[in-house]
């Protein structure tokens, strides 16, 4: 038992590592503040393009969505970070993560928006158009508000996944929360800093996961 506490809940090591972890948390927060809005905007744009009446555009967008859903985010990130420099495109870890997340998240958010838009009845569009609204106005004022409400649990669920996914930025040496914790671990030969990082993720995400569960059950009934 003592060995367990010593290895995973060593408070002395935790307190020594905490300034490092708090700085890491700051980077994680900044990363989220950039990639979540980027993904939401990218996803909405892609979803609208995927609904286009132009068959060519529609199918190439759907192919792109599936392509970026098929490649694991870490593979995409490593390709951008260590593959592109060979082609003369060198990006900082932060930029590489932002680009990779933008491509990956846009595909996922786009699928959610698309499902949402399709869940709104055709009659809504026709009614809106018949009141004299233009196509774009009908989309913005009538369809999208209803679509967003219908897929709110999915949007929230995907956003939780994005926040969790920022941890893979540690692989390309971006000093976010998990990178900082792992650095502290390798210096102290003790896993307590990672337990601490886990605690921080839990503190932030557990309430959101609970909220999501409530929301899902409410919509489901």
């Amino acid at each position: 038992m003592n060995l367990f506490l010593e290895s995973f809940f060593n408070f002395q090591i935790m307190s020594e590592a905490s300034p490092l972890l708090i700085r890491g948390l700051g980077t994680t927060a900044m990363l989220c503040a950039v990639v979540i809005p980027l993904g939401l905007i990218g996803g909405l744009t892609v979803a609208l393009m995927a609904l286009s009446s132009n068959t060519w555009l529609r199918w190439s967008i759907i192919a792109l969505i599936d392509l970026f859903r098929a490649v694991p985010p870490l593979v995409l990130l490593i390709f951008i970070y260590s593959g592109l420099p060979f082609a003369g495109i060198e990006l900082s870890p932060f930029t590489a993560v932002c680009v990779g997340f933008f491509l990956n998240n846009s595909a996922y958010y786009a699928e959610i928006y698309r499902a949402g838009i399709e869940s709104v009845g055709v009659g809504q569009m026709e009614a809106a158009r018949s009141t004299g609204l233009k196509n774009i106005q009908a989309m913005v004022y009538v369809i999208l508000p209803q679509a967003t409400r219908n897929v709110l649990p999915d949007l929230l669920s995907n956003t939780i996944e994005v926040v969790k996914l920022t941890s893979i930025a540690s692989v390309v040496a971006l000093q976010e929360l998990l990178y900082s914790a792992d650095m502290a671990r390798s210096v102290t030969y003790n896993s307590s800093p990672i337990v601490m990082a886990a605690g921080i993720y839990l503190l932030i995400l557990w309430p959101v996961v609970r909220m999501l569960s409530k929301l899902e059950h409410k919509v489901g009934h």
Partner: protein
Amino acid sequence: MNSSQTVSRWDLFVETFFSQRLIDEYSGAIAEGVLITCEIALLVVVTGIALGLLLAMLRSYRFLPFNVLVLCLVDILRSLPPLVLILLAYFGLPAIGFSMSGFVVLWLVLSLILAAFAEEIFWAGILSIRRGQWEAARSTGLGHTQTIVYVIIPQAVRMTVAPLTNRTIAITKNTALGTVIGVGEILNQASTAQSFSGNATPLMMGAIAYIILFIPVVAVGRWIETRFAWRRI
């Protein structure tokens, strides 16, 4: 002049990302990675879904302490990034005498995470079955366990197919995280080959391997989503 310049740029691009020599040299390693990725993915899908279904069924007995325990465990597994759990299991557990290979760690961690998500999805499915079904089944003389196995689960599973497929695909792609703890899956083989050869071709091969492996899966997921769309009762 101009055209010869574009040709040489094209050659440079091909040499950087599609070098024939390196493709020949490393296709064996990538193939080995594909095999390991498939092995872990299949293991994770089987154990994760089976465990999730088992937990959801046990939860229907509504034994409070057990349910609170399951709920906490599921919430924790849904809140933590997989990479955190992988690092914790791989580097932390040996300190208290549990040494596992990277392969086993990856399999266990991803299975537990899939089980947590699957439990929630199955539980939502079980809850969506109307009370009348329970009452009717029980009144024919079936016990609780028989009711779950023969009446509730077959109906609930149908509704869980679409969300479960998407979640399973997402978690299976996390096998790439194994590269961090030295599991020789596709990404690991590709990055090792890349650092040996100083060329981006192996990474491109790895990415293409993933695309070939997962595009059909994503397409099937898309088909299932329309075929088994969640019908609200």
